[in-house]
């Protein structure tokens, strides 16, 4: 009997077009969207050399005759602009040398992105916003900061140049360290992890359906089931198992799609990754079941509450805005530990970046405790229900 009921429930779930769309089609569509939106976001491959003009401000040189810059020497900005590069073969700027009128006309006719007027404080002129304009502006800000630093030091210690000042100023040090052998940190993966966690937690709507379907006062089928001699909790477990099977299938399919089709590297710990997905699924089912058992509102209100919990959890775990994950971890760490979406995505994250399973198992343990608490809560919520009349 158990298998017959399980099989019938599976048929119901797989034939429900709405469920299949949201759990099977929607995540794959979203993963594809992420793939096209983010794949080249942090890559330098699509950066092109930027056309700019350099305008020498002769007036500025005469006014600042006593500046540290020697009038007879070349403006160092010219060299810096010429030397800047995207890669070894690709210069960052294609510098043209114009007077102010030519530069202005060229900018007007979009021949150049920006022009820079030299001087003690070089100025950048652009005629619109954009990535290239921002790059030029950022570049010049860096240059100005460095120039100011050198200037300040030379005023106090004129012989600093002979002691390697330029090398020191130009020596950028990165304080970011890689934490795992050979794994390059990839911010895009956080989006995929949050997406996977979101999809796992979407099982909440399935859990909700299962509980609504089994309650005599919520559906006609529930009434018919309640007058049958089967134990309600036994049937709920069978139905939840079927829901878990069907929903876990959607997660495995999405994972396969991301690995095989989108070619996303989730690291070497695939079994643990799948385990985290399945536990996320169970948490999702129990969240829905608890809402169904305790929230005494219409099915649509219950559905809205369930979806809102998953959406807010996903937002806080960085699905829409990756920095949110770090903001929460920094300012409200307790939220990170009670947000199941974050715990699931953090489990994926820890599998990829850490060379031990300590953090992964900590997350899994919290999730299992949550699942037990929610399971008991939904059981108690359903057990207390009696129907005076169906």
């Amino acid at each position, binding site marked *: *009997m158990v298998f*017959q*009921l399980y099989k*019938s429930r599976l*048929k*119901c*779930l797989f*034939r*429900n077009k709405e469920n299949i769309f949201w759990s099977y089609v929607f995540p794959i569509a979203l993963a594809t969207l992420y793939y096209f939106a983010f794949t080249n976001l942090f890559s330098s491959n699509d950066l092109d050399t930027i056309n700019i003009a350099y305008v020498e401000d002769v007036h500025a040189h005469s006014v600042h005759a006593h500046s540290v810059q020697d009038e007879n020497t070349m403006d160092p900005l010219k060299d810096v602009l010429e030397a800047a590069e995207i890669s070894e073969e690709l210069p960052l700027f294609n510098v043209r040398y114009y007077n102010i009128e030519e530069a202005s006309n060229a900018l007007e006719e979009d021949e150049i992105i920006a022009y820079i007027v030299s001087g003690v404080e070089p100025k950048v002129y652009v005629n619109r916003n954009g990535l290239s304009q921002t790059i030029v502006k950022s570049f010049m800000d860096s240059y100005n900061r460095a120039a100011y630093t050198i200037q300040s030091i030379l005023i106090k210690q004129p012989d600093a140049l002979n002691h390697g000042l330029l090398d020191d100023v130009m020596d950028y040090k990165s304080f970011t360290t890689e934490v795992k052998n050979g794994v390059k940190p990839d911010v895009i993966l956080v989006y995929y992890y949050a997406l996977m966690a979101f999809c796992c937690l979407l099982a909440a709507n399935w859990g909700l359906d299962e509980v609504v379907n089994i309650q005599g006062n919520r*559906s*006609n*089928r529930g*009434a*018919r*089931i*309640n*007058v*049958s*001699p*089967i*134990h*309600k909790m036994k*049937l709920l477990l069978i139905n939840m198992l079927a829901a878990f099977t069907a929903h876990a299938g959607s997660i495995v399919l999405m994972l396969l799609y991301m690995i095989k089709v989108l070619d996303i590297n989730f690291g070497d710990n695939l079994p643990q990754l799948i385990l985290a997905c399945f536990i996320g699924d169970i948490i999702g089912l129990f969240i829905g079941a608890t809402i169904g058992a305790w929230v005494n509102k219409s099915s649509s209100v219950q559905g809205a509450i369930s979806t809102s919990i998953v959406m807010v959890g996903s937002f806080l775990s960085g699905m829409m805005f990756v920095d949110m994950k770090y903001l929460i971890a920094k300012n409200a760490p307790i939220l990170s530990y009670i947000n199941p979406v974050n715990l699931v995505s953090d489990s994926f994250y820890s599998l990829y970046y850490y060379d031990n399973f300590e953090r992964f198992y900590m997350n899994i343990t919290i999730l299992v405790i949550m699942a037990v608490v929610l399971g008991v809560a939904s059981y108690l919520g359903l057990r207390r229900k*009696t129907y005076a009349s169906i």
Partner: protein
Amino acid sequence: MGPDEYDIKRDIGIIMQNVAVFDELTVYENIYYFCSLYINDKDKIKELTEEAIRFVSLEDYTKFYPKKLSGGLLRRLNIACGIVHKPKLIILDEPTVAVDPQSRNKILEGIQQLNEQGATIIYTSHYMEEVEQICNNIAIIDKGKVVAQGSKEELKAMISIGEKITIETYQIKEEQLMMIREMPNVISATYDNNLLEIKSGRGKNNLLQVLHFMENNKIDFGKVFTQLPTLNDVFLEITGKELRD
């Protein structure tokens, strides 16, 4: 009965007013599913499912999904799901609402057949002619209380109306109608849609007296019907004519 009274539940079948089936399962799968809530043995479930399908004459629709069925077929599927496990007590709540006459007839025949096979039927309906046709013990419930109970004959004996005479006529005047109302044993006389309807009390028969009156007053008339009171009359007299929520 508590929720854990499984042995009692096993012998009860409920057919609710609203169709309670899974839209995602076919006719066969729905009946099979509800049977498997009661029966453990797979072969037995299959056998009972096929029997229930034959009982409601849905053999040609076993692979249809509920959304593809007409109202009548859907009601028959609803019944099959409720009786598939062969319960000893079957509770039917208005199973013929919004059903075509053929399907209604089929359903009523089926219910009588189940009763003949030994099942006790509790049938709830607002259609008095159905109740009159299939029930041998009737309870009239008004505002949640049983207001009358007994066989149809016993119920009919409880009301004042003994006979109802209906005469087809085209030319009766108001004063003539008043005279009929004043005849002994006449409870009411109404004229509507060329039909004169006279309700008389128990005991004395009024038909001859009315026909003499028509002849003496030179009122032409066509068809004449006499009727004993129906359960509808019983219901209206016992519960009153005001509208219910």
